């Protein structure tokens, strides 16, 4: 699905990713955990194509194509989706119109005709139900005046609508109460399939009670320093990140 090799990236001359490696196969769920400032969100931004970051070295192959050569929109059309840590409010752009345009663009890229209006509306209705998003929110401006939980649910709603092959969830759990967390995780679980992969970036183990990962990676100082299964997440929850930092520094 995606193969990230020796990825180096910096912002304003400061290197954040320092030789990041990860292989994700179809259908797998990988969690990336780590202390603040370890480069988790930078990784998400670089993969989605944010231009503020400069990739200085490395290679990323997504569905057999060179991801780093693609514009952000082409990455999305190829099936990459980023659920933002801080979804952007866009007053005046209706959620529904924007999604309709997005779906049309993706279908056009794949050589498919636009969805019929009734099929689109049915899709909206089904996916809204899936993330328990109120109909009125879908008709409002993108994220405008949404609560934190509504914004995150809207991200998952968009993900459900766009049906990506690889979804990156950037701290989708931050700031969510337990009910919202269950709804968001429930939405993700319904979308899990043998041909869809997830990279779940989180600071806390709690989310992984609901979205059970196949692998857990610990990121520190721009690299993956430890890989395990869901038990590693539990260990991190009880022991914190300091021992990882220590281990890493000793290894150097």
């Amino acid at each position: 699905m995606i193969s990230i090799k020796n990825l180096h990236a910096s912002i304003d001359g400061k290197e954040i990713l320092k030789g990041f490696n990860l292989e994700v196969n179809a259908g797998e769920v990988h969690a990336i955990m780590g202390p603040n400032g370890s480069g988790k969100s930078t990784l998400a931004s670089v993969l989605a194509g944010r231009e503020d970051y400069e990739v200085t070295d490395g290679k990323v192959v997504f569905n057999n194509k060179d991801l780093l050569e693609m514009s952000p929109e082409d990455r999305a059309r190829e099936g990459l989706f980023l659920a933002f840590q801080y979804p952007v409010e866009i007053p005046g752009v209706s959620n529904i119109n924007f999604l309709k345009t997005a779906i049309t663009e993706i279908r056009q890229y794949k050589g498919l005709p636009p969805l019929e209006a009734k099929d689109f509306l049915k899709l909206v209705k089904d996916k809204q139900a899936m993330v328990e998003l109120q109909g009125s929110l879908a008709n409002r401006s993108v994220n405008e005046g949404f609560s934190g939980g509504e914004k995150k649910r809207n991200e998952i709603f968009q993900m459900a609508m766009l049906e990506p092959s690889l979804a990156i969830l950037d701290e989708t759990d931050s700031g969510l109460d337990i009910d919202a967390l269950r709804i968001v995780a429930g939405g993700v679980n319904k979308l899990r399939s043998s041909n869809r992969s997830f990279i779940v970036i989180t600071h806390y183990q709690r989310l992984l009670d609901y979205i059970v990962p196949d692998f857990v990676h610990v990121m520190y100082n721009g690299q993956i320093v430890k890989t395990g299964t869901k038990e590693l997440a539990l260990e991190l929850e009880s022991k914190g990140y300091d021992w990882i930092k220590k281990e890493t520094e000793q290894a150097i």
Partner: protein
Amino acid sequence: MNNVSVPHITQSAADHFRLVSASLPGDSKVLELRTNAMERFVAKGFPLKSDEEYKYSGTEKILKDEILWTTEIAPERVIDFDTIRNLHKDALHVFFVNGELIEQASDINALQNKLVICTLKNAAYDHAEVFNKYYGKNVVGFDDAFAQLNTAMACNGLLIHVPEGLIIEKPIQINHIGYANNQSFYQQHHLIIADKGASVNIIENYISNDQSDAYFNNQVNEIFIAENAQVKYYQLQNENKQVVHINATQVHQEQSSYFDTNTITIGSAWLRNNLNIKLNGLHCETHLNGLQILSGQQHVDNHTLVDHQMPHCNSNQLYKGILKDKGTGVFNGKIFVRRDAQKTNAYQSSKNMLMSDDATMNTKPQLEIYADDVKCSHGSSTGQIDKNALFYLRSRALSEDKARTLLLHAFAIEVIEKINIASYRSYIENIIEQRFE
């Protein structure tokens, strides 16, 4: 072009006035008013950069050596009136070409059985009492050279008089088609009078033929809104990019009256809007909205003045600009709250988006408040397209162009949504959408 010729043109205006003044519409009192206006114009001359009110819009750059004060005969046969009608079918249409009414193409007869609508020239004879009573009265206190010049010399334009209690449902769309040669200077002057409890919706649509050269269009609109009357007054300024357009709208509101205006500016090379609202009764409500989308070297200057003279009135202003290339914009909004105007609510907002490094926006909000129990606010912001929003949309598969268009449309829609005539609103939406493509 240098400043030396500005006095020369001022003099040529005065000479022309002497020649034609006896034949201008109105009685001897109106002629006196015209003569005074001409004297004030000559005393002031065309405004230069040194004039505080024209600081960013000095006329040094736009005045030519010679100006033609007479308008030429309109080549009406080359104009496709039906196409203009079909763009907004829900309105009754009136057509002017180079400032002259084209009566046979207009719906004057359909309108006339309900209200008074006629040219200024006819008004001076057929409705002399009304004409002589109102002409120029709203301009006297407005010390602006262009408005004075127009008031002195104007012989074209419309009298629209809505008698007491009459409600005109269909909007009246006045189409101004410029087809003039270089250096023509045409001036129209409308009198719009809504008597007690009357209601009327007026749209002014300014277009010019693509082949048309640079010309000057200097217009004054006097709007009198009596007690409990309503006027919606919308303008679409869409002349070609060589035209110089100066527009003064002078509004006088009486008790419990309502005024709503929306000015969409996308055309002309150099454009100045003066919008002066006098709230002269209790419980008046007034809404001023404007959107400008500029490109190339366009220059657009919106000057507003809302004069709260009486208590319990509300005024609201929203002006937005999208400036591309080397476009320059000005917003100067003044709110004046007199000592008696307690319980005033007056709000003003100017928001602008610069799309290039060479675009410029000058904003100057001015509040002068002499009453002590009022709510007034103003805000002004000028920025660029939101990069985070742009990336967000692109990460959802929208091309950069499409994302940009969507964001610009979202920015503009706030002003367009305030248009209170549904058919006209969708007409404007279509035009704006084409501008973004």
